[in-house]
């Protein structure tokens, strides 16, 4: 495994002035962010997670590896509190998700394969709505868009007119603006061009350095391994290896 940040240019890692991470929920005392033990998560009747066990600490960047259909997305959605845990244990940021799934959600960002943007609203409308919905009132919205390379001329453009890559950048900017403690990203590089991928990689490193925890699934292993501090390999709904 490569060192964190390898392949990330120093220019890309420069944090724009005023852009902050974690000012809402910074809790240095929290050392274990995800504590999963023998967790079973059912999709309909199919055990997408079939007794998975993993622990993720604060500030880690964890890569989820494995072919399609082995439980990576289910792991991410479970940790976000979107899927019920049928048996086993799952604690995220100190919240017992077996008992109650809603409490953790405001502290977590989950970026899946979809944009999570309203097509009819402009870029700024979307970022403002989602950051306010997350309870962020003083978020550096423009800084977040700037960080992801979304130029000012796009701010007032309806999202439906953006390319897939531009939508992805806006969606990631929303994650930045909402300042979550746990970043759960499913194929975050998908749709991004080379510069966007570089920006994303540096962003993940910066977020982790600021104390956030990043867990992401990716099939672009060369790039992902350069950023990750650790990787978990999935097979058949189980975590079969844990590599530092």
């Amino acid at each position: 495994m490569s060192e964190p940040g390898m392949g990330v240019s120093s220019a890309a890692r420069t944090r724009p002035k005023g852009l902050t991470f974690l000012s809402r929920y910074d809790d240095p005392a929290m050392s274990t962010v995800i504590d999963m033990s023998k967790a079973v998560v059912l999709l309909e009747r199919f055990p997408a997670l079939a007794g998975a066990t993993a622990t993720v600490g604060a500030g880690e960047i964890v890569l989820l590896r494995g072919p399609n259909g082995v439980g990576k997305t289910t792991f991410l959605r479970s940790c976000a509190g979107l899927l019920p845990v049928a048996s086993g244990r799952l604690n995220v940021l100190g919240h017992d998700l077996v008992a109650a799934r809603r409490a953790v959600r405001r502290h977590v960002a989950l970026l899946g394969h979809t944009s999570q943007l309203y097509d009819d609203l402009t870029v700024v409308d979307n970022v403002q709505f989602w950051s306010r919905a997350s309870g962020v009132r003083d978020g550096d919205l423009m800084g977040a868009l700037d960080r992801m390379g979304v130029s000012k001329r796009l701010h007032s453009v309806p999202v439906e007119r953006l390319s897939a890559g531009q939508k992805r950048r806006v969606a990631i900017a929303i994650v930045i603006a909402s300042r979550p403690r746990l970043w759960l990203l499913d194929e975050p590089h998908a749709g991004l061009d080379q510069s966007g991928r570089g920006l994303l990689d540096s962003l993940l490193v910066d977020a982790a350095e600021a104390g956030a925890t990043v867990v992401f699934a990716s099939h672009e292993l060369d790039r992902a391994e350069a950023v990750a501090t650790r990787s978990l390999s999935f097979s058949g709904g189980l975590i079969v290896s844990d590599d530092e």
Partner: protein
Amino acid sequence: MSELLREAGLIARKDLLIEWRSRVAVNQIAPLGMLVLVVFAFALDANQSLLDRASAGLFWVAVLFAGIITVQRAFTLESEHGIRDALRLSGIRPAAMFLGKLAAISIQLFVLEVVLLFGVVAMYDATVEEPLLAVVTAGTGTLAFSAVGCIYGAVSLGLRARETLLPLLLIPVVAPVLLAGTRALERALGVSTQAGWNWVGLLVVVSAIYTAIGLAVFGPLLEDG
């Protein structure tokens, strides 16, 4: 409570902003409602007395068609692009989402009803003899329809065939709203001597009941839909 209202306002503002930007209600839904009135005007024109008696009912039929599309669109927006998951993660209380949706749909439908009422007056040669009763009937009827619509809109969120299922689910449940609204509006238009305000009372009760149900069940529907 203030936080709940803030969140509800956020949802309502977002929905109205989407409508403002997309102009779907103005360019498609309102014309559909007017078209319904026009079609019935042509169909019943030979019988002016029948048109007089049917005008209140036709008004609510037009509202029904336009309302179903409004509700459908309001919830389709939340089912696209993984937005439902994002809303669940946002931390906005389900009760606030329900109230916000209710407010946005009600405002759009109420404006539409004002337009349709002018259409009824112009095309059916109707006279609004009790304007206050007409406005309150439209307001309470809208609220009742929207409350039911929000519940069934959430029910249909996760359904693949929601475009066809929503009307099937919604129309039987809003039938009492249409009945009460029609009776009250008939009195407001001077084609009936029934006690219009009693029907308005029924609309208020239906609004209250379905708003209470919506506040209670919207969360589970959002999770399970």
